[in-house]
């Protein structure tokens, strides 16, 4: 009916407004973005695999990689994924202490990982492996550099949320703010779970 199209008595504020898929649009959007990012990292990882053995000039994987250091970084990143789940749980329960504790730990893990990469990259420079030394180096730095940038952005994001949480701005009905960041954080971790074996372990144990 035309009246049905035009009739209008009170405003329906869109907060209460159910979405078509009954999922918050921001959550759907971050999933969509993550889907797109998969292709982003797929292109980077593929390029690295193609150029992994292109180190006729300068050092190769076996000359520079320090697996214990990176294993530590990997572990820290994996734990942070668990920590952020605990923080989200705290936010949903309205448990401010729990939220602050676990979110702080997550941010610390993020900082540690970025610091680990800076340390690792500095070490590579000292061993004579610059960005353009050879294609192995270039594709390694491009891939892990982009991943590190993602971690840094995630850390910054979670740090901002930590500030909000400290000021009491993440009540249970706004836990979604943290959940979205957490989804991104998990994705960044998952990418590292692929990078660690493909880039470090397989390059070392290849012929």
């Amino acid at each position, binding site marked *: *009916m*035309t*009246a*049905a*199209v*035009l*009739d*209008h008595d*009170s*405003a*329906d*504020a*869109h907060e209460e407004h159910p*979405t*078509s*898929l009954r*999922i918050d*649009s921001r959550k*759907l*959007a971050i999933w*969509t*973005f993550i*889907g*797109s*990012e*998969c*292709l*982003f990292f*797929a*292109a*980077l990882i593929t*390029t690295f695999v*193609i*150029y992994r053995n*292109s180190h*006729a*000039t300068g050092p190769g994987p076996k000359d520079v990689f320090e697996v214990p250091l990176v294993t530590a970084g990997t572990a820290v990143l994996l734990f942070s994924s668990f920590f952020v789940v605990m923080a989200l749980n705290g936010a949903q329960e309205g448990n401010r202490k729990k939220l602050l504790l676990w979110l702080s730990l997550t941010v610390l893990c993020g900082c540690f990982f970025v610091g680990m990469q800076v340390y690792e990259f500095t070490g590579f420079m000292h061993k004579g492996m610059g*960005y*353009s030394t*050879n*294609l192995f180096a*270039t*594709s390694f730095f*491009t891939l892990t550099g*982009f991943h590190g940038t993602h971690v840094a952005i995630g850390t*910054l994001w979670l740090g*901002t949320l930590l500030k909000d949480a400290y000021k009491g701005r993440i009540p249970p009905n706004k836990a979604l703010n943290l959940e979205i960041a957490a989804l991104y954080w998990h994705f960044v971790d998952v990418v590292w779970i692929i990078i660690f074996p493909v880039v470090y372990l397989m390059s070392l144990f290849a012929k």
Partner: protein
Amino acid sequence: MATAALDPAHATSPKRSVLVDWLTTVDHKKIGILYGASAFIFFLIGGLEAEVIRLQLMKPDTHLVSPEFYNQLFTMHGTTMIFLAVMPISAMFFNFFVPLLIGARDVAFPRLNAMSFWVFLLGGLFINASLLMNAAPNGGWFGYAPLSSRQYSPGVNMDFWALGLQILGIASLAAGVNFFTTILNMRAPGMTLMRMPMFVWSVLVTQVLVLLSFPVITIALVMLTADRNFHASFFSYNVAGGDPMLWQHLFWVFGHPEVYILIMPAFGIVSEILPVFSRKPLFGYSAMVFSMAFIAFLGFGVWSHHMFATGMGPLADSFFSLMTMLIAIPTGVKIFNWIGTLWGGSLQFKTPLYFALGFIAMFIMGGLSGVMHAVAPADLQQTDSYFVVAHFHYVLFGGSIFSLTAGAYYWWPKMFGRMLDEGLGKVHFWLMLIGFNLTFFPMHFVGLLGMPRRIYTYPSGLGFDGYNMASTIGALTLGVGFLVFIYNVIRTWRTGAHAPADPWGGATLEWAIPSPPQEWNFAVEPTVTEKDALWAMKRAAGVKVLPEPPLVSGKGIHLPSPSWWPLFTSFGILIFMVGIMVKGETHGFPFGPISVFGVLLTAFSIFKWSYQPVDHPTSH
């Protein structure tokens, strides 16, 4: 009942200057108009470049422009038409009509939508600024390595190209996330996926293509930028072992989905127009949906048919040949369904239908030469010749541009509240149809005779002369056709008849609301019970045309607030990219102070944006 007609002061946000209003708008309709206006100007620039190219090729041994400038012309023509004309003109329709067609008040993320537009505009201006410096991109629109490397393209030309496309990619990806979410999540009650208008389906499929293909070109462009500016050698064949083929693979993994990004919205527009002007529903709705999805799916498995001439070997050639031929099946399904829609319909010969019919005919011809390219041995003969130029203009001009023009005539009344002149519209159509075929049909012959694409000039006596003369006359005819369109727009602006809400007897929800729509689109969210929602409402009311909807008060309706931050974020992104180019001339740390400033501005703007409240009631 409907609230009484209202004083027009409520129709616009008061106490804001017009300029500020447009710079900070988050209204999807205004953003749509901004997209359309900017893209049309870019389209005219790209068209002008094409006319100069045709004048240069009109006769043998011509030296109208220098060879160096000619390289810039064809590169900029291709880049402009694809990224700055067809994509954003499609985006105009996405923006203006997707929310209206699904019965929503706006897109899911209005400010992100504004950012997409500003990033697009700044990216487009950035690429075109190169023309003023006589340093426009000159390596062809697909920027093949190693020609695009610093060694063979020493100027900043290809930096403008790589960084400009990078900027445009950000706009497309942001819009991709936004429209994918909007379509899935903002539909009016009862608008199930299989009740969505076909145009909305085409936009959904397009966004999937954008989301999965643009990340790959992003990486390819990062690598190209690294090669050119940071001494990397991803694509340079040298001692380090870089491989130019990697560029081709990465580019076409993006590039082939990209051509479907250009044509899918065209499919959607034509699928809206044909039912309305045939007075019967779209034939084979679900087959249309699935064939579109199938085309998109196959579109990711055919990229190497652009690379038959590189010698990939018989296995790869066969695979990509067969996959490419397979695409003819869903495409054929679509064409037969369009014809099935027309069949037995009560055809209303208005301008939009003319252009839609032109689309079908021209697109079939482009599709047929496409199948010829799918045959790898034949492609070896055709590749890089004018035959290819003929083919992709039949699908991109005969396909996309015809359909987008049809859409412009169809939706103009809804966008601006005035009817474009029918007589001038038909003059435009005939000039365009004749001019188009006169330009591009001879290119098939001259291509098979051996004229290479992108050639600066040619000697006489090779049998090229007549065909090229015909093409140039055709191109000028096309130009006249668009001048008629511009005249039509100007005349309509001043004296055009006011459009009713539903001038065509439309089938979809946008025709239920006033022309042009009020800021909040639907005062009350419509409820949808079946496909062709408006036709269903008319049937239920037992009328052919619903009574003219009155203007209503927007009091109390929550609308997203205007914001400066999308614009500032866009400037941050632009400054970052400019910084890379400026710094790219020197050695050392890749990011100079300009880039750092760009990053900081972007981060600051996003931060402020995040803490800005989303919406406000229109009541004051």
